[in-house]
């Protein structure tokens, strides 16, 4: 609960690459309004921000850390073995741990940022969503090393290899639910603030990579809608979508735009703060007793 005795909210940060930094603006707005966060749920790049915030980092720290962590250099180094496996699968023993980019650098940076943090030891309860590569089902990590769950949830198919945890392989959380509101519902949240993002469509389909990203964006955007629709209708209480409007195009690694992204996240959240405050006031035990 906040210092005013209000109940808190669950914050769900969906997939969206660097756009997920808008969640920092959302958290700034919540804190200014003295609205506590009872639970954080993250998916894909949203896991980075959810984990940093759950661990007690300030939003300024989190912005700075992700500026250093999430740069285009993490995808620049090719995984030559994967290219050979793709071209000659039998000769080079193609297997499920396929990723066209070398993940050494991203792992180094995740270790530098998160060290040996464990999900169950966070200051705010944290749940990180990925996708089971064998079954396609959503997988939720509520305990264990944060690095493993984050690496699993950012395993963009074809780009980064699926990540093993306890004998199973996991890929990017957006493949099962780009905005995992259902996790917050299942964990008992009443009021859920959900920040989600469309996957951007390609301006030009000029190579196979862009073709694949376009197909992926179509699938994930339609999945986002269908999942959000179901959860919105199924939830017993309130889901408040916060959807920042970006007038500037934001690419995968536009970390120099993080201040702008945070600003837009804050602006979108500010518009809902008055309602959120009234809703939480109406739900406080004192208010309920007075009914």
């Amino acid at each position: 609960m906040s210092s005013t005795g209000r109940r808190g909210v669950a914050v769900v940060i969906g997939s969206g690459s660097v756009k997920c930094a808008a969640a920092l603006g959302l958290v700034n707005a919540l804190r200014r309004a003295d609205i506590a966060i009872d639970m954080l749920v993250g998916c894909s790049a949203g896991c980075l921000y959810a984990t940093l915030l759950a661990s007690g980092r300030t939003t300024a720290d989190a912005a700075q850390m992700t500026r250093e962590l999430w740069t285009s250099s993490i995808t620049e180094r090719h995984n030559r073995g994967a290219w050979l496996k793709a071209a000659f699968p039998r000769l080079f023993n193609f297997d499920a741990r396929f990723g066209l980019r070398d993940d050494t650098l991203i792992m180094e940076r995740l270790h530098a940022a998160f060290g040996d943090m464990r999900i169950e030891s966070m200051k705010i309860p944290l749940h990180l969503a990925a996708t089971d590569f064998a079954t396609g089902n959503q997988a939720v990590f509520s305990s264990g090393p944060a690095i493993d769950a984050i690496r699993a949830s950012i395993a963009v198919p074809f780009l980064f290899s699926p990540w093993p945890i306890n004998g199973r392989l996991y890929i990017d959380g957006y493949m099962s639910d780009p905005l995992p509101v259902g996790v917050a519902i299942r964990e008992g949240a009443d009021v859920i603030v959900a920040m989600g993002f469309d996957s951007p469509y390609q301006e030009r389909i000029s190579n196979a990579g862009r073709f694949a990203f376009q197909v992926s964006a179509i699938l994930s955007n339609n999945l986002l809608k269908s999942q959000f629709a179901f959860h919105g209708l199924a939830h017993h209480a309130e889901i408040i979508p916060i959807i920042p409007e970006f007038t500037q195009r934001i690419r995968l690694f536009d970390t120099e735009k993080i201040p702008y992204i945070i600003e837009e996240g804050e602006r979108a959240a500010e518009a809902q703060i008055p309602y959120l405050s009234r809703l939480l006031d109406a739900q406080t035990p004192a208010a309920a007793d007075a009914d």
Partner: protein
Amino acid sequence: MEIAVSSSGSVTIVEISGSVDGLTAGLLMRTLSDRVSDGWPRLVADCSALEYTSSAGLRTLLGAVKLARQHGGDLRLAAIQPGVLRVLDLSGFTSILKFYPDVDAAVFSFAEPA
């Protein structure tokens, strides 16, 4: 949220201002369901001043459109604003509801063959 009800022929026009959310959705549902129960299942929601809808608002819209259609009518949305449209689109509602640029067009649509 404020609601103003008027009619045009057999069509009820419900002007919704402000926010349809967990604190206000009940009033909107009562208003719409009362009209349907009174024999006025053709509903147009004038959304020109609707600023926001949360999941509670979406559940109300879905309940109202199902009720109206069960009684041979429909709930059609007019003059929806971009911010609200984004939430409706995100929630899949653009695939099941009919949208019109203004109230006149929405009212007129009921005169057209289905």
